[in-house]
Structures are given as structure tokens and as C-alpha cells.
């Protein structure tokens, strides 16, 4: 589907992602990033047409945790604003639809998450079916390991190949000053077979922000806007027992609806927190070896919950801004074993 308006990512900022940020509140973590994207465009809070954020109360450990972040935005005089209890990639999607209606020409999107205060593996069990599955506390690494084993059993990958994904990601991250893990990181011991620590994302805290603008406004704010040619997201059944874990039909459908298969892409920023998930996504998104996958290092180098998906959109856009990519796809995921997936196609104008 061709969007009714041309909308672009015109600025992107992210924190350094750290294992622990005890000394910072969420608002303190977020504010420098908000200021960074506003400064990059010269916009003030009062110039922004719509604001949308993504975060999770369960990471903050309390209800209504996003209200204080809004205070940090400086919502005075009152602003047009909304929030999704999802990764910031979906906040960007909501902002994109708002801009499509013509009710706003610019949008500020941000998301943040601190995993350090609790045990994120335990916390994520709370997003499973509350009656039949959550009481068993199957954690996120164990579920990802099921998926990895299914892939190995299907002959789609093997452990050395997974180790290769990890090594490549963290080598790429060496050029990313915000990454939490980079360079030569040992693959480590088994965490949950067949996954070793190197197959799993680091646990960390971080935030990200993006500014969207429509049409000529985007051209005023950015030398080479990253135009959103299409964006779509799809969800699958929740129960792992009714899904083929070696495939990601929702990613494929979202990519198709976003127009990803119409022309080749040169870059893909995939939100694959586990090495095995990159294998699934490469196949679903039909990515050849000539595509630069996760040049930022991806979620294996930094995986701040609720922001990691938005960061994929931001990293892909930033490559277009810098002239390093002409056509990129960005992907975000939510839920166990890639249950829900979002795909955006970003393009720069020929230079």
C-alpha cells in the first residue's frame, strides 16, 4: 500500500546502552536523547505536532510509569500526545498514522526501558498466557532456545553458524559507540541449550528518540530524509504449540505489505535478540548475502527493552541520512519467539 503522504525519519538519537544505570531515573536517562533529536532539527517541544512513546510498566515495576517521562518532555503548554505499552517502533507506527491523517506535520517518538532493576528473564514470563503458561515461569531464554533447537532440527542452522552471527554482530558493533557489547566477545558457556551466552542479547538500560516529518517539512529539517515508503506489522498466535517456530509468517506478511519485496534493499536492521532469530528473519524477509544485516551490531550488541525496535528504525534511517544506504528495511519484534513483527521500508532520495 502506498501511503497517502510522504513521511520521513529526520532525526535519531540514542543513549549509550549500559548494564546498569542505578544513578539515573528513567526521565534522566531519556532527556538527553530528547534534547539531541530536537537540537538536530532545531525544533522545540512546542513545534512538535504529535508526540508518542513506548514503554512498559513491568520493567519500571509500577503502574503509570510513562507519566513522569511525559513531564520530562516538557508538555506545557499541553501537547497532543499518546503512548503505547509496546516497543517504541509501534509508537512510531502510531505517529506515522497520525501524520497520514494530515492532523500533524511533525512527530516526536521516544521509548526507553531499564532492565537492570529486576530479572528481565523472570519479568518477561509475565507476558505469557496468565492461566496456563505464566504460572510455569518459562523464561525468555528458554523459549528462544526451543526456537533455536527447532531450527537446528530442521537443518536451517547449526551451532557454529549461530556463533558466526554473534561474532559478526559484535564486530560490527565496534563502530557503534552506543553499543553495550562489541568487538571480540567469547561465545561463552551454554545458558539454555543450544544457546550460549554469546547467542543471547546483553541485558541493559537505554532510550531512543526519533523525529518524523511529512513532505516539505522533512526536507527543511534534514538534508537527506529517510522516507518511510511502507510500514506494516502483524501478530501471530500466542501459543508456541500452534506456531512453526522455524518461520516468521508475520514478518513476511508485514514486509510484503510494506513493499519490501518490490525492489532490493541494501541494508536490514533486524530486531533479533537471539542469534537463531536472525536465521528465521533472514529467510522470512528474503535477505541475500549482499544485504548489510545489522551494521549497528543489532540487538546482540545492545537490547534495551522497549527501545531496541525503535533503534532499528533509527539506525536504518541514520544510514540513509549519512548516505550509506539508499533503501533499507527496519524490523522490530515483540512477544516470545518473534510473535509480533513490524517492518518498515526506508529510502533516501537519489543523490
Amino acid at each position, binding site marked *: 500500500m502506498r501511503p497517502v503522504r510522504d513521511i520521513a525519519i529526520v532525526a535519531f538519537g540514542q543513549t549509550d546502552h549500559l548494564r546498569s544505570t542505578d544513578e539515573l531515573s528513567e526521565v534522566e536517562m531519556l532527556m538527553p536523547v530528547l534534547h539531541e533529536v530536537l537540537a538536530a532539527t532545531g525544533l522545540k517541544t512546542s513545534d512538535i505536532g504529535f508526540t508518542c512513546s513506548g514503554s512498559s510498566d*513491568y520493567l519500571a515495576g509500577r503502574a503509570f510509569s510513562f507519566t513522569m517521562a511525559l513531564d520530562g518532555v516538557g508538555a506545557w503548554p499541553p*501537547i497532543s500526545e499518546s503512548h503505547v505499552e509496546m516497543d517504541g517502533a509501534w509508537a512510531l507506527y502510531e505517529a506515522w*498514522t497520525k501524520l497520514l491523517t*494530515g492532523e500533524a506535520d511533525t512527530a516526536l517518538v521516544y521509548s526507553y526501558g531499564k532492565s537492570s532493576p529486576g530479572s528481565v528473564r523472570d519479568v518477561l514470563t509475565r507476558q*505469557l498466557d*496468565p492461566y496456563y503458561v505464566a504460572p510455569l515461569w518459562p523464561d525468555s531464554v528458554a523459549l528462544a532456545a526451543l526456537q533455536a533447537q527447532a531450527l537446528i532440527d530442521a537443518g536451517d542452522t547449526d551451532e557454529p553458524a549461530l556463533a558466526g552471527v554473534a561474532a559478526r554482530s559484535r564486530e560490527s558493533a565496534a563502530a557503534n559507540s552506543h553499543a553495550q557489547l562489541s568487538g571480540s566477545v567469547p561465545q561463552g558457556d551454554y545458558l539454555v541449550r543450544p544457546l550460549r551466552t554469546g547467542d543471547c542479547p546483553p541485558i541493559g538500560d537505554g532510550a531512543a528518540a526519533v523525529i518524523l516529518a511529512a513532505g516539505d517539512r522533512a526536507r527543511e529539517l534534514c538534508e537527506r530524509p529517510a522516507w518511510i515508503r511502507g510500514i506494516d506489522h502483524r*501478530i501471530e498466535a500466542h501459543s508456541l504449540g500452534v506456531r512453526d517456530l522455524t518461520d516468521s*509468517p508475520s514478518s513476511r506478511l508485514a514486509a510484503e505489505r510494506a513493499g519490501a519485496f518490490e525492489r532490493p534493499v541494501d541494508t536490514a536492521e533486524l530486531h533479533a535478540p537471539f542469534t537463531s532469530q536472525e536465521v528465521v528473519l533472514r529467510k522470512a524477509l528474503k535477505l541475500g548475502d549482499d544485504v548489510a544485516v545489522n551494521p549497528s551490531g543489532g540487538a546482540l550488541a545492545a537490547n534495551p527493552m522497549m527501545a531496541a525496535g525503535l533503534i532499528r528504525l533509527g539506525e536504518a534511517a541514520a544510514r540513509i541520512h549519512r548516505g550509506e544506504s539508499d533503501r533499507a528495511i527496519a524490523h522490530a519484534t515483540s512477544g516470545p519467539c518473534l510473535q509480533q513483527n513490524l517492518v518498515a521500508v526506508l529510502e533516501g532520495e537519489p543523490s
Partner: protein
Amino acid sequence: MGKEPVAVVGIGQTKHVAARRDVSIAGLVREAAQAALKDAELTWADVDAVVIGKAPDFFEGVMMPELYLADALGAVGKPMLRVHTAGSVGGSTALVASNLVAGRVHGTVLTLAFEKQSESNAMWGLSLPIPFQQPLLAGAGGFFAPHVRAYMRRTGAPDTVGSLVAYKDRRNALKNPFAHLHEHDITLEKVQASPMLWDPIRYSETCPSSDGACAMILTDRTGAARSPRPPAWMHGGAMRSEPTLHAGKDFVSPQAGKDCAADVYRQAGVTDPRREIDAVEMYVPFSWYEPMWLENLGFAEEGEGWKLTESGVTELDGDLPVNMSGGVLSTNPIGASGMIRFAEAALQVRGQAGEHQIDGARRALGHAYGGGSQFFSMWLVGAEPPTT
């Protein structure tokens, strides 16, 4: 190219009660969604996307429940968005869904909001300690009571006005089969004799805790043309937010509420809301918020809202009926409460509100707010399609 007009062609609610022990969370939401599909005479296959909202996840103890609810809401293979904007979420969720239609992303969208408070304990959910912040430890009533007191002092309203609102809304609820509280023996004296909880708010002037869900089917012009029953057309919708706490904030009449209403009226071409709007479903969790919001929404001059209430203007047979359904004071599944306001406004202009229908209602306002009077969402719906 302008926005695609948005029509409400299906509305469904559960019977709201203190505890729905007969259904799971999935069963509860599916019940409301199926009722909305039935109203629209559509099937799950006709739905292009699902937008779901609820208040904090701690209220049920399920993190991001949309993941688990995808199957129950027929969302598998479809886009599903989860909105959370505190107490205003039910309204915001409907507005996010409306953007999908207005922006021509999808033709037909199911939007739903719920709360199943009996699964956990809302007071616990609201009382978790907050690092770096002074705990309020007062509950919602404790937070809002001083602002009600400020309103009374500022306007000189007599202390009887709050009980009039509660008495009216609880009587209206008797005409609404979905309402949680059906107090058949309600009298004004009983409201006034109920225990004082947070002075000046009495027990009978507060909302209950409910389990319940509300769903709507939103669609474009093509979808509306196929609707078996009259659609409600969206004429305006807006959200506004302001900080919870800051020196310039007017807790009695927040600027965000005024701005939000003004934006909706501008979109709808309404210049005199008191005359041009026929019915209002307003978010009134504590009875005094009716006169306060009457002023904030521009139905009364500053300081005059309580006079409208006292003179019976907001009664079911008054000339500006407010909370015909019984309102939040009679039914409060928190995350759904805002969407119920939006849906009840739509029912009125569709002529489908049953015993609490206002004859000839052509334009109705749905209103929601949340946080510390921080988040606002509203829409104005009409019986006729928008002209612009």
C-alpha cells in the same frame, strides 16, 4: 486529499460487574468484540486490524496482555496495537483506531478496551513504591478530593451538588442493562447519608471497581454504506496531555482539557457547545467532576457549572443530559471506562441507546481523562456524515 470519514457501525459491551468469575480475560474481551461484530453484522474476517487499550498491566498482573489476547480477538495475521494512556486510555484507543481509518491505512478496525479488576487488586497496582518520588499514598479519591474542595471554594458551590450528580447517575444506570451498579432503592438521602471517604467525597459519590469490556467497529465510507444500522459519524477527535505536577497547573480546570475540547469543537464546526451538542458522556469518577468538567468543556462559564447541575439541566430529561448510561459512577472497568463514554455517545446519535436514549440526539460528546487530570481524550460524533 482530506481525511477519510470515520463511522462507528458496531458497538458491544459486556455486562459490567464486580467480578466476572465465569470468564477468563480472553473470554471477557471476546464477548464484547463479538457483540460489536454482531451489531455491525460483520465477521472476524471483515476486520483489518485490532487496536486494544487498558489501564496499567498491574491491574490484572499480565504484562502486555495483547500478546496473549491476539487469538481471542481474531488478530492472528493482522496488525494489533496496544494503547495505554492511563484513565483516558479507552478514549485514546478509539482515537488511535480512528486514525487508521482516517489515514486510509485500513478500511475496518476493531477497537476494544477492558479491565478485569477482579484478577488482581487495583489499589496494590497503584501503590507500588516509586524510586526518586514522593509517594502520594492517598488513592485516587485522596488525590482528587483537594481539587474538588478548591472548586467549591472558588465557585461558592453549595455542598449538595455532588450528591445530586451521584443520585442522577445511579438512577440513569437503572435504565442501562450493561451498567454495573443497579441500586433500585437509591434515594438522595441515602447518597447524602453515605460515609465520608475523602472529604468532601462520600462513598456513594465514588465509582465502583468493575470487570468489563467495550468494543467498537470503526469503518470508512464504503463500510458505512453497508452498515445495517445507522452509523455514528466522527466529527472531531483529539488528545491533549500536560505534566502531572507543575507550578502553573490548574487542577480544577486543566488547560489540556480546555485545549482538547476546543480542538474537537473546531474540527466539528461547533461554536456554541451548550446549544449545539445534544448529549454528553463525561468521565466522572467522583460526582463533583460533573460541574467541574461542564466548565472545562465549555458548556458553562467558569464558576457556573454547578448551577447547570443544580437546575436539572444535566438530568436525562434536561436540555443537556450528561451520563445517560449512568457514567463512570455506575460502571468503572478502568481501562474500558473511556471507551464506554465514546461508545455511549455513538449509541445516542445512532438512536440505539434503549431506555436511556435521548430523543432526537444528533450530536454527542464522549470524554475521558486520566492520570492526575493530565491526559484527555474526546470525540464528537453525529448522526450525519461530516460535511468537510
